[in-house]
């Protein structure tokens, strides 16, 4: 008797559950039906921040809708490798640094770079000005911080170019993704992205002066100048699907077109894009920090002499040269590692709309630093 009533309760719960889910389904159908947009998803390499402002702006300002797409942006995490997510079908497109896309590709993932958005590398090695580190040679005998996880390639190549042995001439230290180790004096040179960690240290109070740290307080090694910079943020797509699925290819052209339009918009309206990113609920830093990042990100993209999103063959060759000489890649990738046809179509469409895709006149703005980036 008692057992029967238990089963009865279970049965009732089951029925409720089914009814509830059935209702849920109906709602979804009604909501989705009227729009005839193609749903695609984009896997970011990191959390929402101005590094991805172009994509958020394209969502927010309806650029994706204009080309018939309904884009869902999926944020990254510590353990998320965008290339893997893309290849396994967890997302339709992904943002990834070039080496971090090519390594899994060499391991067998068939993905391809369809738009090289960033034309320059944002990675720096930052030390205190009084440390006497003014060039790569000066790193000899020092504690050199890096993040690991594939973020150290440019540093290793830079050391090699200066004739330094990474194992014996310097002490490589795995550091946090912040600047505490440098400020604490645990390391002599800290890895920093020009748009993030470098800003962070400028947003910090110098305990000696009671004021914010100043740019003069630091000495910077920029891998673009050293000549060991590697290409960073690019849009990647599933190569097999591009071949087999004409709809996917059309969506890729549309996606790249609207994304680049977003970046062009952010070049001309950095404050609006910063506001969009902040409104998305970036958990990272305050509005001032995002404004700094927006400005620096623009400088990594613009000017794009060949047109935004087009691969710079010279920088690509340099990236591959470093990757193979450092043992990051076993061999130079085949021709399918990147393709320019999609970006070219997208750029042609943008030019037809009168959008400036080169940004020849771009000059980096000046952004006020605020304590804590608030």
């Amino acid at each position, binding site marked *: 008797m008692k057992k029967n009533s238990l089963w009865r309760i279970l049965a009732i719960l089951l029925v409720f559950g089914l009814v509830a889910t059935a209702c849920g389904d109906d709602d979804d159908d009604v909501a989705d039906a009227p729009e005839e947009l193609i749903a695609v998803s984009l896997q970011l390499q990191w959390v929402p921040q101005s590094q991805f402002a172009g994509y958020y702006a394209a969502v927010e300002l309806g650029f994706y809708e204009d080309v018939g797409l309904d884009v869902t942006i999926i944020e990254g995490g*510590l353990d998320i490798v965008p290339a893997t997510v893309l290849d396994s079908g967890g997302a339709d497109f992904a943002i990834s640094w070039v080496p971090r896309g090519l390594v899994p590709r060499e391991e067998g993932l068939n993905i391809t770079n369809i738009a090289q958005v960033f034309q320059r590398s944002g990675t720096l090695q930052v030390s205190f000005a009084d440390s006497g580190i003014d060039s790569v040679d000066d790193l000899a005998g020092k504690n050199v911080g890096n993040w690991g996880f594939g973020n150290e390639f440019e540093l290793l190549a830079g050391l090699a170019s200066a004739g330094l042995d990474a194992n014996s001439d310097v002490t490589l230290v795995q550091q946090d993704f912040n600047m505490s180790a440098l400020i604490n004096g645990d390391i002599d040179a800290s890895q920093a992205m020009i748009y993030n960690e470098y800003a962070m240290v400028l947003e910090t109070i110098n305990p000696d002066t009671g004021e914010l740290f100043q740019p003069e307080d630091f000495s910077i090694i920029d891998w673009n100048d050293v000549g060991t910079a590697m290409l960073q943020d690019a849009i990647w797509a599933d190569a097999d699907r591009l071949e087999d699925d004409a709809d996917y290819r059309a969506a890729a052209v549309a996606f790249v077109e609207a994304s680049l339009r977003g970046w062009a918009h952010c070049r001309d309206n950095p404050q609006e894009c910063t506001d969009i990113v902040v409104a998305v609920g970036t958990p990272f830093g305050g509005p001032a920090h995002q404004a700094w990042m927006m400005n620096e990100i623009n400088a990594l993209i613009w000017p794009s002499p060949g047109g935004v999103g087009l691969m710079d063959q010279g920088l690509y060759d340099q990236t591959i040269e470093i990757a193979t000489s450092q043992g990051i890649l076993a061999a130079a990738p085949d021709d399918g590692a990147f393709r320019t046809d999609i970006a070219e179509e997208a750029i042609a469409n943008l030019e037809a709309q009168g959008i400036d895709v080169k940004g020849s006149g771009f000059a980096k703005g000046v952004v006020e630093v605020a304590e804590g980036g608030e």
Partner: protein
Amino acid sequence: MITQRAGREDRRDMLKRIGRQIVVFGVFVVLMGFAYSGYKALGQSIDDKQHDWWVVGSVLPRTDDLNMPPILDILTEFGALQGGTDKVLGRLLFEEALFTLREAALGFAIGSVVGMAIAVVLARWKRLERGLLPYVIASQTVPLIAIAPIIVIWGRKNFGFMPWEWKDWMSVSIIATFLTFFPVAVNGLRGLQSPKPENLELMESYAASWSETLWRLRLPASVPYLFAALKIAATASIVGAIVGEISAGVGGGLGRRIFLEAQRYTTGPERLYASVIGSAILGILVFLTITGAERLVLGRQGREAIT
């Protein structure tokens, strides 16, 4: 009449005990605060950065404000407006905690059911126990951060057939499940095996079937063991959810908050401290919830029976 008075005294005892525990906890927290500030004051009075301390200086935490933000700063940070939002950190942490709690609760529920099911199966077929238990134990040696991204991608791709929309936070729940089913399975099994031989023999003499023995003897006997396991599982589910959030890139939760605050530690160490305190409070709250449920279900006698 007598029982009523006994009940009242019981309740008074209980209130007294709870009061005592709160006081002890409060005193402990205050002592910790003094230890923290005292060490800091000591360190600063000698040498702020402690570079010159022999050995000790490189082992003990440094005492400057970057490495040990003042307690007052940490506490006021809870009430400080956060840039880009119109909310104070305490409010944000509360929202993140709810997000994490949802993941953890689902993971806890699934984990408890799965764990109990494993326990019943293992108790029913002795031979399985010998064959399967090593795998159950081995499952706990799998590093969570290694499987977290796999579970997230797998969830996004393969759970499309579910009648509801599969969200990334549900994948995090599965990660939490991974931590919660284990204590329930192991303790549940012990509980199911806990009835004394004479009790089992009595059931046998009634010609009770195995399932009748399960419902009337084994399951009730396992309840105290289960609650011990659920307490572990509840806190573990929070840990699992936080670890899952850190590695899986879901759009919220205490884990993600801790991870991000660690990243911008340089410009606001007190925010990281506050986030960690927030997580600790959530862990304590779920533990207390299960303890409360245990007391409701078992009363004092039940608890004493097992301790």
